């Protein structure tokens, strides 16, 4: 394994005449990267391309120095929790993970130990000997996760991994992803649940209709959305006085006093400069309680770039 990044170079994938993803060029560093976009935006296609389940119509993909069409090398360090909710017939949870490890060529004792460890990590030990066919949606999701992490991969690709999980398990699973990311692994997650993406992601990739609309850290992406000036909420005792001073700045496009009369919502094209100037603007008798960005999150970025209904920009 050479290289430390996941690279897409001008990758396109068409299903006949239908566009899957188009001209995607990405460089994904270690940490948690979230793929965000509406249904049909190309998230699963991108993950399937990354893991060799699909081949690109054009372009090149490189996963830490290995091409996805070399499964013998790729899946030594890649784990993929797919969205497919179907399993080989008649298997128990234990057999599902154990047989996967035997396919790696691992001997019985090692496969058994790794299986038990992975099943324990997803808190499914009690149900391990039951048939998967009798599992709930959340349990099926967890056993797929156990399969994806059982060989200790350095790249973990997870397609909607939080679907069907109850809040407690969801929190534990997020903590698991966080721990893996902190250990220097690549964790790539697709999700519809934006506030969770916001909480756990180191970087996001926004997709719409097969195109990458934006990529990078949330703050960086938000800053680049110039059509929508950044909103900053200032809580203070005299918002109208502050508002009159704030308009002296040419980067401010709007300042609106909050309904409760104790705050000010400012829209600025240059938030960094605004923060610098704010202290100078504060006049006597105005006590600042808090200053915080109001739309510096995935939800807002998603809405600005993709639209509130998930449509294209």
């Amino acid at each position, binding site marked *: 394994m050479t290289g430390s990044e996941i690279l897409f170079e001008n990758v396109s994938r068409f299903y006949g005449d239908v566009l899957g993803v188009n001209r995607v060029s990405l460089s994904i560093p270690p940490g948690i990267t979230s793929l965000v976009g509406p249904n049909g935006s190309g998230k699963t296609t991108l993950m399937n391309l990354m893991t060799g*389940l699909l081949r690109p119509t054009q372009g090149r993909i490189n996963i830490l120095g290995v091409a996805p069409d070399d*499964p*013998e090398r790729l*899946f030594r360090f890649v784990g*993929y929790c797919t969205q497919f909710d*179907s399993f080989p017939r008649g298997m128990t949870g234990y057999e599902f993970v154990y047989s996967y490890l*035997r*396919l790696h*060529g691992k001997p019985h004792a090692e496969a058994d130990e790794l299986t038990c460890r992975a099943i324990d990590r997803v808190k499914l030990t009690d149900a391990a000997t039951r048939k998967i066919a009798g599992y709930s949606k959340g349990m099926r999701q967890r056993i797929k996760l156990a399969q994806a992490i059982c060989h200790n991969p350095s790249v973990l690709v997870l397609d909607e991994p939080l679907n069907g999980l109850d809040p407690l398990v969801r929190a534990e699973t997020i903590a698991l992803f966080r721990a893996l990311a902190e250990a220097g692994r690549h964790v790539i997650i697709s999700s519809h649940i934006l506030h969770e993406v916001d909480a756990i992601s180191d970087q996001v990739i926004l997709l719409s209709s097969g195109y990458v609309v934006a990529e990078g850290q949330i703050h960086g992406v938000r800053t680049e959305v110039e059509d929508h000036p950044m909103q900053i909420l200032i809580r203070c005792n005299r918002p109208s006085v502050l508002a009159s001073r704030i308009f002296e700045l040419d980067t401010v496009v709007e300042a609106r006093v909050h309904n409760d009369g104790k705050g000010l919502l400012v829209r600025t094209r240059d938030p960094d400069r605004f923060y610098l100037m704010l202290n100078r603007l504060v006049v006597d008798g105005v006590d600042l309680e808090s200053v915080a960005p109001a739309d510096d999150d995935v939800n807002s970025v998603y809405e600005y770039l993709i639209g509130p209904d998930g449509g294209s920009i």
Partner: protein
Amino acid sequence: MNPDSWSLWRAQVAAILRLEIKKNFLAKRGLWIYLLAAAPVALMWTHAMLNLRDHRVCDLGHDSLIFATMFQFFYLRFAIFFGCVGVFLRLFRGEMMEKSLHYYLLAPVRREVLLVGKYLAGVITTSIIFCTGTALTLLALLVHVPRMAAEQYLFAGGGMGHVLAYIGTTALACIAYGSVFLVMGFLFHNPVVPVVLVLLWEAANPFLPQLLKRLSVIFYLHSLLPISLPAQGDFAFLAILRTPMPAYLAVAGLLSIALAGLWLGARQVRKLEINYGTE
């Protein structure tokens, strides 16, 4: 290719065999394959039991001719043919339909190793089922014959050679038909029509020109059969004018068909994508 690769591939093929053989034998959908294999067994054992009950004297020559006819026209052309359809088409196409093939494709297994593992599992499954059927049917042939006559037939009359030839032909039929249907599973989304075409092609084999005859599995299998059906007498209407070739050439022909199928399968499996939406 270093020794480590070979030992890894062996371990991976063994893991695939464990999964696939269990699945093949225990699949409820495969029950009809057991019934196909058991049909001649049931028929011959019923015949044997009735003979024993009624103390009838058995004509081994006549019974072996009945067996040869049944083997050639039911077992080879129908039971093994469709049994292989049932097992080998399911190996890849069936798993695509059930949306479970990605389980294998997410493991660090070369696609060719996966192909070989699944094919071997199919060969082992069908060979065990149909060779057992052949052996049990032959046993029924001998069970109601006086012991001395049976021993005479087996050890002095070339009977053991016949038994081995029938069992060997059964296994080779599974090997060759298996490879044909494995490839069909890759090439066709709905293999029903191509399977029917192959069936017709195999049935039309006696009437084809010499060169085209060699492009069928049944041509080589016929060359391995130890008993030819007579062109006169009770079974004349079933007799086929065959142009047998030496056994070693027939075996080589069948193995060549199997290898050609595996080669084509390897080309297909390398290009295989998981796109369940189009299945």
